[in-house]
């Protein structure tokens, strides 16, 4: 029998969360680089959007975002939404750091403060349990549930 208070997170699962964070943020950054290379697409030439997919940065970004969605769904299959979302929000921090050190954008004091708040939020949530144990909680409250 498993202890309901025991952490269900393993090294592999932390790696999946890291995948969610990295593929999402690096994918967005790739799209941003590609979008700047392709230039503005006018509304009456939306067909150019399809051609933009063949830009290596945009193509790479799309592949990374498919990886993001696959790892996000995997994480949701063993962790709560209110665990996965804040934990993967570290991606905002990665995007901000990539913007500064790769794209050479300026980070204001507000943005550094934002990074601090997000990191604190991630720290709070990842120190707690990843999954709500419904099956273990119900019999204690109602005395009706029967665990196999």
């Amino acid at each position, binding site marked *: 029998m498993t202890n309901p208070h025991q952490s269900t997170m393993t090294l*592999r699962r932390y790696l999946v969360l890291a995948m969610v964070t990295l593929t999402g943020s690096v994918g967005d950054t790739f799209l941003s680089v590609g979008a700047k290379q392709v230039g503005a697409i006018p509304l009456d030439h939306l067909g150019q959007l399809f051609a933009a997919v063949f830009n290596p940065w945009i193509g790479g970004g799309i592949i990374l975002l498919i990886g993001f969605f696959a790892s996000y*769904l*995997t994480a*949701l*299959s*063993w962790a*709560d*939404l*209110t*665990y*996965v*979302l*804040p934990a993967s*929000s570290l991606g*905002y921090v990665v995007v*901000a750091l990539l913007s500064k050190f790769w794209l050479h954008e300026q980070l*204001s004091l*507000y*943005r550094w*403060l*934002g*990074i*601090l*708040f*997000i*990191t*604190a*939020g*991630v720290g*709070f*949530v990842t*120190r*707690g*349990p990843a999954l*709500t144990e*419904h099956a273990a909680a119900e019999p204690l409250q109602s005395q009706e549930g029967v665990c196999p």
Partner: protein
Amino acid sequence: MNLASNASNGSTAAMIASIVVSATAGDVLTASAMRKVGDLDLIRAHRGLPGAIRAVLGNLRFLAGLLCMAISFFALLFALNHADLSLIAPASASLTFVSNAFAAKFFLKENVDRRRALAAVCVCIGVALLAH
């Protein structure tokens, strides 16, 4: 001409609300579907990657979640076409964090304790600050 000047406060709020509601519905439906499907690592170990993909795509709740995510994406595009990115992106992202916490508590019966609520608030403030 600045498109943002054309959008009144009311319509901007309605656009942000549309993004937040559809994004939250998408996240909650997807999370609920994945809970029903079960541990994808185990499914992949038993039935391989095609089996895992079939399990996910065969779930109606997942498809409904995907539809809501698509609506949210187009609502975001529409809003960006009418109002400033610096308002729409952080407002919708941070409000979605809070609405997800409420929706997860009431619909998914997740244990949103003080720790998780504090995490949602911290991330919400952080996202808003990143927009500056």
